[in-house]
């Protein structure tokens, strides 16, 4: 048997241990490759989007690559550790350091090459689906063809090969420092009683709760300055939660004799006590990865879903056109009818309403500002157009200020009485406020509703350029015609109609920018999430040898297969779902912060998203539990 054969057989014999490692490597290679295929796609190369798209994908590639690097490094390290005994044996049998290093390098190179090839094949298989999805996403006319640029293959092969080799070198370098005795002891060293400190446990809990409360109370203005402190609290907090608080909690459980000594609990809890501590850093890592995945995709998905509601909240009328001054108003009708014709041509149902407004002046926040006035009967008509029923009455000494959606602090605090002036008219009103139902315009900050009589009073003295004409549209099911509506507004002369506001425009802008982010964000999130799962899977496999001998002795003294299943299921479930639940709670507070900024509810979208993750995770869980139990059953 030559040395190469020996190395090859070693990989073959250790197939089970290598399997999870191999699958994870293969997975990251194929994801990397798919993005590379899109990045170097010949048709995107010529597309106007090219620059932005390529930059986006390049960023994703860097994230995937650095992530794979960490992952492979962790996995190889753990893998080598689990085989230290074998290396110790080889060394006592007289294998030289150089030979051992060569064996390691050869083994890892074999694994690396195989996973690169397999990753490319899997990637090619799925690339087509991704290309189709991608061209849909960025609205390229007609789908992109199926093409794989040689550059994509080259980039993937070279970067991953270099990565595997660097990793192997790093590993052999750390091995050098270990004496044979250490190798022999390997992972089998006696398990020490897990230590924890109450103070650190409580600090951990405190950090997490502080971060939660910061997120809970954040709003549009405070979220940005708070973002960094929240991260700074939550990450070490979670770390302490896993390394200290979890052990502390189990320790409490162990003290409760009636729980601890209840049948299989003794085995479940005592084993978990060690496993939680052994795995605490891993669980922490998995939690953070999952939390990032949930939060990122939840925020993006939530924002994407709420684009319509947000557009409706920002812009009160579906479409509004506004002209200022006598001379523009005279030409406005032509423009309005052009727009209406456009809508009719496109088969879009609409109702419209035209009304006059006039300009006046009030004193607010220590300065004189221009406002425009709307008569209460016009207000009622607008409400009717929007589909609302109203019963408000405004008497001659009352006025209602309509507040825009976003206010700077203090803006909403109006004096109880205000004087409205225009030319020589000057009247004082008692003030009420309400949310606006007209679209904002660039001329005046506030629109004020007054009685019809008062409106006439002010309108009769207005200068020609203080006159406004406002045409509001209500379009049935506007969001499904958003693009047609937006296109139609391009036909209007902006010199004449100075204020064109559509929900469609806001909606389209939100959707477009978010769909990009969503495309990249979701895939990175899913990648993170799957990586988290793989790491757990890998760890479970590493423990398997230990567990097998444990269950073998337990079986002899009379542990039933049913009880083994119960214990194993509980343990796998804890390892899987503790990080998952913590990540969900973390993400929920992030969603709450998002909710504070949005009008529409993010509850349903985030619930939907978490449910999807949960479903994937549950499948993962049952799969791994099945494998684990099957392995244990072999010895029972």
């Amino acid at each position, binding site marked *: 048997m030559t040395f190469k054969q020996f190395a090859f057989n070693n990989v073959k014999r250790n197939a089970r241990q290598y399997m999870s490692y191999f699958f994870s490597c293969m997975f990251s290679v194929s994801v990397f490759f798919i993005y590379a295929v899109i990045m170097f796609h010949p048709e995107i190369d010529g597309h106007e989007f090219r620059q932005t798209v390529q930059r986006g994908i390049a960023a994703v590639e860097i994230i995937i690559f650095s992530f794979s690097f960490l992952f492979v490094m962790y996995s190889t390290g753990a893998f080598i550790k689990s085989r230290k005994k074998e290396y110790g044996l080889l060394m006592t049998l007289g294998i030289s350091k150089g030979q051992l290093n060569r064996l390691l390098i050869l083994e890892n190179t074999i694994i690396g090459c195989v996973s690169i090839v397999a990753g490319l094949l899997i990637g090619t298989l799925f690339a087509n689906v991704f290309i189709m999805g991608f061209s849909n996403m960025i609205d390229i006319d007609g789908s992109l063809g199926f093409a794989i640029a040689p550059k994509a293959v080259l980039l993937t092969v070279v970067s991953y090969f270099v990565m595997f080799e660097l990793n192997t070198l790093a590993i052999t370098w750390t091995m050098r420092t270990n004496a044979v005795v250490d190798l022999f002891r390997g992972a089998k060293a*006696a398990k020490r009683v897990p230590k924890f400190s109450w103070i650190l446990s409580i600090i951990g809990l405190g950090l997490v709760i502080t971060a939660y409360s910061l997120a809970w109370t954040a709003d549009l203005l405070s979220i940005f300055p708070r973002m960094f402190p929240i991260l700074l609290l939550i990450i070490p907090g979670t770390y302490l939660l896993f390394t200290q608080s979890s052990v502390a909690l189990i320790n409490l459980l162990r003290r409760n004799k009636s729980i601890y*000594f209840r*049948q299989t609990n003794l085995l479940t809890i005592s084993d978990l006590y060690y496993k939680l501590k052994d795995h605490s850093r891993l669980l922490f890592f998995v939690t953070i990865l999952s939390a990032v995945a949930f939060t990122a995709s939840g925020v993006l998905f939530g924002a994407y879903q709420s684009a319509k509601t947000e557009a409706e909240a920002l812009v009160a009328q579906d479409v509004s056109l506004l002209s200022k001054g006598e001379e523009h108003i005279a030409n406005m009708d032509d423009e309005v009818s052009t727009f209406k014709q456009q809508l009719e041509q496109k088969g879009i149902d609409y109702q419209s309403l035209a009304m006059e407004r006039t300009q006046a002046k009030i004193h607010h926040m220590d300065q004189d500002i221009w406002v425009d006035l709307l008569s209460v009967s016009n207000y009622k008509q607008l409400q009717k157009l929007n589909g609302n029923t109203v019963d408000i009455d405004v008497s001659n000494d009352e006025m209602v200020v309509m507040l825009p959606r976003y206010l700077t602090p203090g803006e909403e605090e109006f004096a109880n009485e205000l004087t409205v002036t225009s030319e020589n008219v000057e009247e004082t009103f008692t003030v009420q406020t309400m949310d606006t139902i007209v679209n904002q315009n660039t001329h005046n900050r506030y629109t004020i509703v007054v009685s019809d009589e008062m409106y006439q009073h002010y309108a009769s003295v207005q200068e020609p350029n203080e006159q406004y004409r406002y045409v509001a549209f209500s379009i049935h099911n506007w969001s499904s015609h958003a693009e047609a509506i937006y296109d139609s507004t391009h036909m209007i002369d902006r010199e004449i109609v100075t204020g064109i506001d559509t929900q469609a425009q806001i909606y389209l802008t939100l959707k477009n920018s978010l769909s990009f982010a969503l495309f990249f964000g979701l895939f990175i999130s899913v990648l993170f999430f799957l990586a988290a799962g793989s790491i757990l899977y890998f760890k479970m496999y590493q423990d398997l040898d230990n567990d097998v001998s*444990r269950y073998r002795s337990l079986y*002899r*003294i009379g542990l*039933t297969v049913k009880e083994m299943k119960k214990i194993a299921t509980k343990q796998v479930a804890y390892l899987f779902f503790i990080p998952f639940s913590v990540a969900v709670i973390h993400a929920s507070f992030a969603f709450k912060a998002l909710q504070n900024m949005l009008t529409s509810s993010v509850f349903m979208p985030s619930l939907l998203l978490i449910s999807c993750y949960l479903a994937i995770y549950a499948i993962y869980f049952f799969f791994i539990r099945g494998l684990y139990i099957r392995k244990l059953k072999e010895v029972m």
Partner: protein
Amino acid sequence: MAIVEAKSISKIYGGKKGIEHKAIDHLSMNIEAGEFVGVMGPSGSGKTTLLNLLSTIDRLSAGFLTINGSDITKLSKEKLATFRRKEMGFIFQDFNLLDTLTIAENIMLPLTLDGRKVKEMETKLAHISNTLGIDGILRNRTYEVSGGQLQRAAIARAMIHEPSIIFADEPTGNLDSKSSKQVMEALTGLNTEQHATTLMVTHDPFAASFCERILFIKDGKIFNELHKGDQRQNFFQDILNVQSMLGGDTDDLQTIRL
């Protein structure tokens, strides 16, 4: 009353693809209540296999086996496990204590699995650990105590639920002579005081000399049987004689160290 009744039991390994190997060949034996029986024989003669069969860890290929009056060949795997945990205690060469549990927890494990009350477990633990002289290490972990202490803890675990029979596979195999002696004294003590029926497999003639009766097996069959007379010294000499007669295991011949 016979605790174990084996009639013409066999165990055949391999078959189907490989060559068949009769590890136990139509062997019959009885163990009476309160007996302390030893099983000896050359390496590969089928001692461990016999113990595994009698203790229901392995399935019979042929034959009849009753333990404490119940025909265990009819029981399902699941029932066998519960049967083992009620009726049997186990002691192994490598102790088989769980390193995630303290010594006390290890000893109480059979009672815990059985769903007993904490109070009851603690009383029994106190009693048995006192008998075996291991009260001092109850709170320790398995890696903090000596091999002899570990094995005595394992004996305590095997005894705590008052099983009808205890199976021991080379309980002194990993111990030095001093610890061996302690462990064997503990086992015989329990046998005489509490009438614990015991079946022990061993290579060690010294350990075997503590038994009342020794079965020698060779190639899966009973080769010889020795009863202890009045003199342990003579018994020990007899054991050595039979061993050299059996051959094959000469390196196990040991100098007298009584």
